[in-house]
């Protein structure tokens, strides 16, 4: 259990833009690790991130990051780095000057600022382009220099709004590896993304948002387990799927059993996955069938997203 000074706490937070809802009645506690904010466009992901960093102020409620209120930037940004989606930069600066300038604004001495800029540039693999004007950068490079700016002062909480946008596949995987490494160093990472399989790969927990409300939060498998109205789908690859179908269909908790098109597998929908796995184990132990593989079909973020939000989400 994390102590309050390690948590990001939203206490009944609402944000309205005039009469338009940004987010409503958000109560959330985010512990260290990688947390992803997931939801369709306009769900409230960026609003939540901007509220977390004081760029927006809540209409109601309060937010603290590691015990620091978000209206105290001079303290907050000693701990927090934020990579926004705003794709704009102060004019005329090179990548290195951009990092240096804002480290100096943070209050670092020039020598230390130079060192930190160099480390950040190395981390995002942008050393070679560091002395070119940011205006001449490609979209992916601009994304990386923004990322470098958010991590340059080595914050303990990193908030990243769609940080993988514009990155090529190689850099995407390097960046995800960087996020994992930062999380393993004890950082809070809050990432918004609409690329569900990447979120699935890197997140310790997810927060699903829709229309300004939190629809679900927690470990993705835990969220899936709680969705009783959507029975779990499991694909069993075996030598005698028809026999297995007859065997499982007698069970109350199994509501559907359907042969795979290649007739070498069986889809089962069950309201109680644990009981189904026990049943399957018994069948295997009794030698009734040879099973190649058993895999849940809809125990991932895409399925949860589809069930809760009603669309298929995004893909790379």
């Amino acid at each position: 259990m994390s102590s309050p000074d390690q948590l990001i706490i939203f206490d009944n937070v609402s944000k309205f833009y005039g009469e338009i809802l940004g987010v409503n009645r958000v109560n959330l506690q985010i512990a260290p690790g990688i947390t992803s904010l997931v939801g369709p466009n306009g769900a409230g992901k960026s609003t939540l991130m901007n509220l977390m960093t004081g760029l927006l102020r809540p209409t109601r409620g309060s937010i603290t990051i590691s015990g620091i209120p978000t209206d105290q930037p001079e303290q907050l940004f000693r701990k927090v780095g934020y990579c926004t989606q705003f794709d704009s930069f102060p004019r005329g600066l090179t990548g290195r000057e951009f990092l240096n300038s804002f480290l100096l604004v943070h209050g670092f001495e020039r020598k230390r600022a130079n060192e930190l800029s160099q480390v950040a540039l190395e981390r995002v693999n942008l050393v070679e382009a560091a002395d070119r004007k940011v205006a001449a950068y490609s979209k992916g490079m601009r994304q990386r220099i923004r990322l470098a700016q958010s991590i340059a002062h080595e914050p303990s909480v990193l908030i990243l709004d769609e940080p993988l946008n514009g990155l090529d596949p190689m850099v995407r995987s390097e960046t995800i590896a960087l996020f994992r490494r930062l999380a393993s160093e004890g950082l809070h990472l809050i990432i918004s993304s609409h690329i569900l399989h990447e979120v699935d790969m890197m997140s310790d927990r997810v927060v699903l948002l829709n229309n300004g409300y939190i629809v679900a939060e927690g470990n993705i498998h835990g969220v899936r387990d709680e969705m009783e109205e959507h029975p779990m789908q499991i694909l069993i690859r075996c030598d005698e799927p028809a026999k297995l179908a007859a065997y499982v269909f007698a069970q109350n908790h199994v509501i559907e059993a359907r042969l795979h098109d290649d007739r070498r597998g069986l889809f089962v929908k069950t309201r109680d996955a644990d009981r189904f796995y026990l049943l399957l184990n018994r069948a295997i132990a009794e030698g009734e069938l040879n099973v190649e593989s058993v895999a849940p079909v809809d125990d991932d973020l895409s399925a949860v997203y589809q069930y809760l939000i009603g669309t298929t989400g995004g893909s790379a």
Partner: protein
Amino acid sequence: MSSAVEAVSTKPENHTSNWALWLRQVGAIFRLEVEKNFLGRRALLIYLIALLPLFPLLVLAVVRPPGNEWKDFNQFSMIYAILYNGLILRTVVFFGSAWIFMNLFRGDLVDRSLHYYFLSAVRREVLVVGKYVSGLVTSIVLFTGTTVVAMLLLYLPHFYSQSLRYFTEGRGLSQILAYAGITMLACVGYGAFFLVVGLFVRNPIIPAVLLYGWEWLNFLLPPLLKKISVIHYLNSLLPVQLSEGAFAVVADPTPAWIAIPSMLLVTVLVLVLAAYRIRHMEIRYGND
């Protein structure tokens, strides 16, 4: 990507006092902003405004106008007073300060880059001070330069040796310093006003025009209302007092020992208002 990161403290030096930190931050903001003010794409208009009074003076340096007053050296202090009051103070310094100071925040909002400051560990009040000082230095350098060069350009081509003596041995030096001081004070006062306007109003042109009108109509206002203006205090400090015309409501000039501290005090109050505003400001570029 490199994973080698030194495990050293990354926080700005804790042993330094808040004041030392704030001064360092003001310096960092000042450097960024002053470069933008002088070399950014918005600087072109400032240079044009600053050079505005010099163009006619250059022409007059070559072609002497016919009137008798242009033949009398003693009339030149009056000619300069009219030029300074009408063109330099009320137009160049006014609109130049408007452009410089309104763009300190409004320009960053339009360029969508203000959030980088807001995402730094800097008090927003410090940000106001850093930006204001950068605007002040920019406007003072340019418009004091205009004030001094305009005076030299008026005198020297027509009465060269007499003017040299006037500026080195006579009252010329004290006049030139007085005009330069008034220009600086105008930058201080108008600068603070336009900085705040840029923070509160999405289209700052309208309040700028309203203030411009108010300042020009100052001569018609009753004495009490005259005091609610910048130009009244600046006019009180002019080394050569000008007649405001037959319709002017006459009011005693405010003594310098009241005018200068009053303007500085109002400037501080306006900057406090700016700091309050920026402390509560949100970044919503879509609305700007």
